[in-house]
């Protein structure tokens, strides 16, 4: 591809990958919406740092640009917007639906192992960066899905989607050092608009249902 990464860069990226997984697991554990947003902030920060690391190794301006975009959108804009929405709808804590938190914690560990297992046919032929980072990205996607099905509040579901999106972004960096620029811009635009829409909708729901509990969204059946 673009040549090989040096051992030091690889080590840094792997540490950051671990940090990404850690923050994802933290958001499975946390119940307060503010701590969830903080975890998301650190996750996006780690993602931007991975971009910078790889961009520095290959002297690739495109990746610096992606890092800047990630920092601006995912570390500043989206967390601030989510904080604004959570203050407006006055949500503090979230409840679990299927699994208690210790069980969910173990399940997310199982999901990480599972993603390593099913991606084995791809990662045996892949380079050292792709091997770990692609697995991390699928783990992030699965943990995001777990968060979405296990929590009941609308804002946590938005954070689940954002974690999935981070996983996708990581996959783009891990496999091909970033998707083509125009695709990346399109994806970023969609994320911003999507989060704003979800925020607006959730404040609409909290106005008309007097709650953000998605369990209460059960008017439509069959």
């Amino acid at each position, binding site marked *: 591809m673009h040549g090989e990464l040096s051992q030091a860069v690889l080590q840094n990226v792997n540490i950051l990958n671990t940090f990404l997984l850690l923050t994802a697991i933290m958001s499975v554990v946390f119940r307060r919406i503010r701590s969830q947003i903080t975890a998301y902030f650190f996750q996006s920060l780690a993602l931007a740092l991975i971009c910078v690391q790889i961009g520095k190794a290959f002297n690739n301006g495109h990746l610096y640009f992606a890092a800047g975009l990630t920092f601006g959108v995912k570390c500043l804009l989206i967390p601030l917007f989510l904080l604004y929405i959570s203050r407006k709808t006055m949500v503090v804590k979230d409840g679990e639906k299927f699994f208690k938190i210790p069980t969910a914690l173990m399940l997310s560990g199982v999901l990480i192992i599972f993603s390593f297992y099913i991606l084995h046919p791809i990662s045996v032929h892949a380079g050292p960066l792709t091997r770990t980072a692609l697995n991390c990205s699928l783990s992030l996607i699965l943990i995001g899905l777990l968060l979405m099905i296990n929590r009941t509040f609308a804002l946590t579901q938005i954070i689940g989607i954002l974690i999935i999106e981070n996983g996708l972004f990581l996959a783009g960096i891990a496999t091909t050092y970033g998707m083509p620029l*125009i695709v990346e811009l399109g*994806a970023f635009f969609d994320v911003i608009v999507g989060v704003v829409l979800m925020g607006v909708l959730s404040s609409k729901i909290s106005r008309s249902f007097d709650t953000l509990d998605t369990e209460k969204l059960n008017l439509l059946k069959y």
Partner: protein
Amino acid sequence: MYENIHLYLIFLPVAFALITKAIRRCLIVEYFSMAASFILLVISYMFLTGVGTLASKTLKSPIFGEGLFYADHLSAFMAFLISLIFFITSIYSGDYLESELKRRVISERKVSDYYFRGFLFVSAMMMVVFINNIGLMWASVEATTLVSALLVGFYNTRESAEAAWKYLIICTVAIALSLFGIVLLNYAIISSKVPGLSLDYSLLSTAGKFADLSIMKFSFVFVLIGYGTKAGLAPMHTWLPDAYSQSPAPVSAMLSGVLSACSTYSLIRFEHIARLSTGQNFASDYFIVFGLLSLFVAFPFIVLQNDIKRLVAYSSIEHTGIIYLALGFGGPFGLIAVFYHTFYHAILKSLMFLTAGSIISVYKTNEITKIKGLFEHHKFLAVAVFIGGLGLCGMPPFGIFFSEPMVLLAALTAKKYLAAALYLICLSLIFIGFLNHLSKMTFGHYAKCHAEEVFECENCRRATAGCRALDINVGFKMKLAIAILFVISAVSGVYMISALKRRWRRR
């Protein structure tokens, strides 16, 4: 001459949307949108007739350079279908929104909002159809989700907020999964080390076998789940009946008729690339399984349904299943059936949704058990819903009568006898269930006075007991839109089959 038409189809709707936002007067906006959507229809028809004369399929455009857009007969067909359905729904919307205004369900500002979102929705779908880059096609499909979520949540009711939330969340997650598939495709392209290959469909579709088999398999499965959810395949269909039943009737027609076709279109494009590496049979097995599953899931919900719009929505799941079955069986019959069925499903399903919208505005209820004696009071609606419903189940002379046997033929040529048998059983069971509901609504006697029943008064919006205000007139524009759909489906059903026969003989 035809080189730049796609730009008009993508960017004119945006301009129209801004104009409707600027006008704001609801009557002018209605007529303006009708005229504007007619212009789109004419342009896309010109493109459909002229697409064969294009020099190359990758379009050169003045601002964006060459290679950003791509058009062939499939894109022209989809563009025509989108603008046709949009034209008819915008005729219908005039009367529909007026009656909603009269009932004071919506405010006057909402009317121009509605058209604004509608035009943006069309623009996003045209983008899906004409874009060349697979990644940007993904971004456009996501854009259609975002815009149409605004249309689903159009009313300020709790139900519509719930439906819009479910729609937005489920479809966004699904589309995110298909982005993972596209990332893997990009990985496969780069690791194949073929020079000059990028995510452009025009390059990939002629590249031959380029990718690692295991990566492409992963990639295809993720994309199938993503776009399949958006198209409404079971078991990922749970958002669909909610969204279709809570959005305004013309929007349901657009969602069911063309939006699901758009995501099927993206999947067809992707599958065309994937099959170069994975071979023919890999994808078709998935298509057949999901198609049959959709038929199985739709059947009990259609039989037991008591909400007219949800009935039509579940029928959408059934027809999406049929389209995917046709894709899975493949062969010449299967491919013809895909296009044929997509077209007639769009026409007849719009007919059913629009008629259902009118019936609801007459009876003020969605419940099938409360809708009786349609033939007695509203002959036009009765004929439309009964004959249209029969056409949707595959009665002649409507187009679906020809496409459903074609799927069967494709199954028999592909020697998938078990799938063919299950397909036939499901179709006939659904037919019986549908006919039951249709005859319940159309025939029987509706007593106008239920002294014991409390209902909401037309003018004062207070609950009073007495006679229901049943005999309000169905607006002329509503009738016109329904009649156009009716004529198109009946006449062209016969015409197309004879044209097809001539084509067949010539070969």
